[in-house]
């Protein structure tokens, strides 16, 4: 047994163990903390599968942002948790349904797929030169399947609309509450003063390098969102009201810019979301820059949650 195989087996066993721990945890908070560890281990598994783009996204979105969302949810519902477990029949049914889905997926990928599995990787690599990009994942996201990416960003905006809609009528358009009401600790303020410049630089690097290396708008946006959330939690800046025109514009700017580039493709390159000859890379980087900012604003607003206070006059 080679050391790489031993490492992979240990990693797979650890992922399964943490997954079991997440399900078996009795308190919501412990389950969420296990889930974050699970996400980080899963991103290591993606690294081992030589998919660094997916690994970065899993660490930033799967463990980071989703973990924050779940931590907020666990803190909100924690004190309301009833002691009574759901009925046994319901738990068995849920377990059975999950096992069916998992074994169905396993059967499809392990048994039904021909060997070697069908792949579009060679044609994707063959056309890479025409896009001017160096990272085939970015080429898939912004050239081959650009429509999917555009719609994915629209879904993100719809998710934010759904969260904002949870605000009661009297505080509609108001300010979300982030963190406890007590004044922030001096250490947190110190962190919020020192870390964001470094974090912003890393976020911009992550977006910029995405054209040729692993990285991109989503990973950069998630880091940018984290930096903004630290500043907001330390009260170094005020949370803007959900009715703030600038905030709403920031959330919509990326998808709108991307859609505009898409429509321009009709006039300049004969198809929606097609890029004119030789201008593919600059246009993609322009779209990604807008999307990075919009993703950052949307993710931060998702974590902050619906408005709880009336809008400032």
């Amino acid at each position, binding site marked *: 047994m080679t050391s790489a195989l031993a490492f992979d087996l240990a990693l797979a066993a650890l992922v399964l163990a943490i997954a079991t721990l997440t399900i078996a945890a009795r308190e919501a908070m412990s389950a969420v903390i296990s889930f974050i560890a699970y996400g980080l281990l899963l991103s290591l598994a993606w690294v081992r599968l030589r998919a660094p783009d997916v690994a970065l996204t899993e660490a930033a979105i799967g463990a980071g942002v989703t973990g924050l969302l779940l931590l907020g949810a666990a803190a909100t519902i924690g004190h309301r948790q009833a002691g009574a477990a759901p009925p046994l029949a319901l738990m068995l049914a849920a377990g059975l349904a999950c096992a069916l889905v998992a074994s169905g997926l396993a059967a499809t990928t392990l048994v039904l797929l021909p060997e070697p599995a069908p792949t579009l990787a060679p044609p994707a690599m063959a056309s890479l030169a025409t896009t001017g990009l160096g990272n085939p994942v970015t080429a898939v996201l912004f050239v081959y399947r650009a429509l999917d990416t555009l719609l994915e960003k629209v879904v993100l905006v719809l998710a934010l609309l759904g969260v904002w809609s949870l605000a009661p009528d009297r505080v509609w358009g108001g300010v979300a509450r982030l963190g406890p009401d007590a004044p922030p*600790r001096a*250490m*947190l303020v*110190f*962190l919020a003063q*020192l*870390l964001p410049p*470094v974090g912003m630089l890393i976020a911009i690097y992550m977006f910029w390098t995405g054209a040729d290396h692993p990285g991109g708008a989503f990973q950069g946006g998630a880091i940018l969102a984290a930096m903004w959330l630290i500043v907001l939690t330390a009260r170094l800046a005020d949370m803007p009201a959900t009715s703030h025109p600038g905030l709403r514009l920031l959330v919509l700017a990326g998808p709108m810019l991307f859609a505009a580039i898409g429509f321009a493709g009709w006039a300049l390159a004969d198809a929606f979301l097609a890029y004119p000859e030789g201008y593919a890379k600059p246009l993609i980087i322009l779209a990604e820059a807008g999307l990075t900012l919009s993703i950052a604003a949307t993710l931060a607003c998702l974590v902050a949650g619906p408005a709880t206070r009336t809008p400032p006059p």
Partner: protein
Amino acid sequence: MSTAIALVTVVAVSAGAIFFLAGTIGLIRFPDAPCRLHALTKADNLGLGLIVLGLLPQVGTLAEALKLVCIWLLVMFSGAIVTQLIAATSRHK
């Protein structure tokens, strides 16, 4: 020469791994939050520091080496502050 470099890497990374192991045992075995944090920070600072130190001779370019050092500094910085925050929160409970 390459054997010496490899030896430095093996020794430093192994020492780092021992710090991680000790930190984990401390995290599980120590009785209260400040003690557990004390164990944890050794893994973060010294453990990761030794592993970065051991990996430095293996990288090809100066930029890669700087990135490794940046990772260590960032983890140390955020680790130190989060430790303070957890300790302060646990004392006020």
